[in-house]
């Protein structure tokens, strides 16, 4: 499903170069659940952004479903983000002006879905347990509820992969636990590939595979 080879990412700030990734190779198979751990500043988010096609690597190869992502145009990348990948952020990243339902509808708009958007958005919100909060705006929802909306949005175009960068980072432990349960269920019930970043070893233990990132390099190891 995902195969990256010798990925590097260099940020340039004036004269100073920061190497956030220094040659990362990884393979993630369809249906896997993978957690990524590592100290702050080690390059986890950088890696997730590259995997999620939000950012492009400086060097290295990235094959997604056998397709080379490195050589894609901006618009092709947008389509990949739209259809193949669902991304869940630590800070939810919902549009504040829109209701929960409109937020969930957005990826369908960009996918050009003509019919049934309202219905499908409503179903997705029901599936994450927010059937009674559809017309609330993000500011009228709790953190856990906002993250559920974000998950419904990430899933609405039936992506094969769900990437989550510290999805529970802004939540208390109870709603964090609920969100993790929701994500793991998605894997169990629909076989969606799940990759997430976490700082919590207890959460990481739920996963089949743990990838440690240190100083821009990965070390695989079972927890």
């Amino acid at each position: 499903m995902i195969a990256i080879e010798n990925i590097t990412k260099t940020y340039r700030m004036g004269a100073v170069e920061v190497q956030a990734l220094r040659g990362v190779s990884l393979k993630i198979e369809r249906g896997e659940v993978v957690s990524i751990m590592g100290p702050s500043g080690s390059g986890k988010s950088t890696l997730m952004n590259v995997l999620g096609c939000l950012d492009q690597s400086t060097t290295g190869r990235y094959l997604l479903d056998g397709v080379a992502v490195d050589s894609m145009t901006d618009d092709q990348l947008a389509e990949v983000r739209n259809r193949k990948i669902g991304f869940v952020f630590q800070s939810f990243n919902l549009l504040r002006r829109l209701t929960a339902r409109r937020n969930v509808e957005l990826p369908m708009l960009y996918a050009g879905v003509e019919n049934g958007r309202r219905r499908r958005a409503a179903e997705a919100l029901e599936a994450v347990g927010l059937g009674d909060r559809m017309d609330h705006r993000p500011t009228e929802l709790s953190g856990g509820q906002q993250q559920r909306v974000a998950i419904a949005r990430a899933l609405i175009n039936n992506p094969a992969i769900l990437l989550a960068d510290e999805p529970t980072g802004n939540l208390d432990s109870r709603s964090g636990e609920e969100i993790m349960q929701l994500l793991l269920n998605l894997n169990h019930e629909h076989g969606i590939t799940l990759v997430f970043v976490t700082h919590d070893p207890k959460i990481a233990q739920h996963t089949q595979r743990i990838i440690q990132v240190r100083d821009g390099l990965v070390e695989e190891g079972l927890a």
Partner: protein
Amino acid sequence: MNLTQGILSALEGVTANKLRSSLTMLGIVIGVAAVISLVSIGRGAQASVTAQIEQNGTNLIYVRPGSTQQGGVASASGSAGTLTQDDADALLSVAGVAAVAPELEGRGQVSYLGSNVNTRAIGVTPDYLTVRNMSLADGEFISEANVNARSSIVVLGSGVADDLFGGTAGAVGQKVRINSQPYTVVGVLASKGSTGLGSVDDQVLVPLSTAQARLIGGNRYRGASVLSSINVQAANSDEMDSVIEQLTLVLRERHDTIEGSDDFTVSNQQDLLATITEVTNTLTLFLGGIAAISLLVGGIGIMNIMLVSVTERTREIGIRKAIGARKRDILFQFLVESAVLSLVGGAIGNLVGWLISLAMGQVQFGSTSIKPTVDIDAVVLAVGFSLVVGLFFGIYPAMRAANLAPVEALRYE
């Protein structure tokens, strides 16, 4: 994203910050309203001046002393007294001339029972009434007998009658004094409104011979009393040019002048009209230009707001891109937003401009009122221009938004 969805989400963007959107639109509203109202006032002024000139009579040719300036405008008329009654008589025999009405113009202090009016006094012949396309409100006009007898009679313009008698009725038969000489009022002219060049309502008419002998006097030229101008009416509007040519030849012969050194000027309504149309067109263009500048300022306002909005909504753009928005989706969204702002602003501006025009139509400038005309082309121009302005100034911010890298936009706080 399809068109409808794009427009809907742009509307969401516009209505999300109502105060800011209205302030942005205000710039366009003012610009468009200014274009519409100023252009319509310019056009209205042109129409009313044209109408007034046409009112003076048809097929009218003016012969004035003095030489011609460019564009057919006579230099200070009456400055050189070279036209005489003999000239007027000679012109009557030119082929194609229907009537000739010589006049001698001066100023007169007209008084009646302690009321005073300082106005234009003109000595005329009976033909003056028809040649200048005038009619009487009361009484009768100056007759041939009056002219022959140098009668002390006067026909009042309606404005003068208003001032002295409080209306056109009741003046006939009364005695007034003009420059202290007694005159009997025999008639009152019907009102024509202003010409915009000095109202024909504010004048009094006396027999030409009376004016020459007593009231105005004036110089003599070759033994005859001078005239301040000769109005000639052509029999047929198709023959205007040839009549003018004939008149000019006859006068050159009589005055012994050659082309270029004439001591008289022959002009007609069309010349005057053309000159005035040229002037008012320039005026309209000038007013429109000033208005266009305010429209441009309004457009820069849109750009400013859109730039602020792009910066402020960087995170939104990042989120949209993260979930699959392409460049063109973002570009489209911001362009539609600025188009909506400028179109709605343009529509409101049209309405406001139209209301201003209506209001201006109610205002009296002295005895003149302008009927502003809002033409469809001005409306199309203003709205089209505001849309172009909106899109033009919207494109740069929209491009900036569309070209943001998703991850950078998301990092923006």
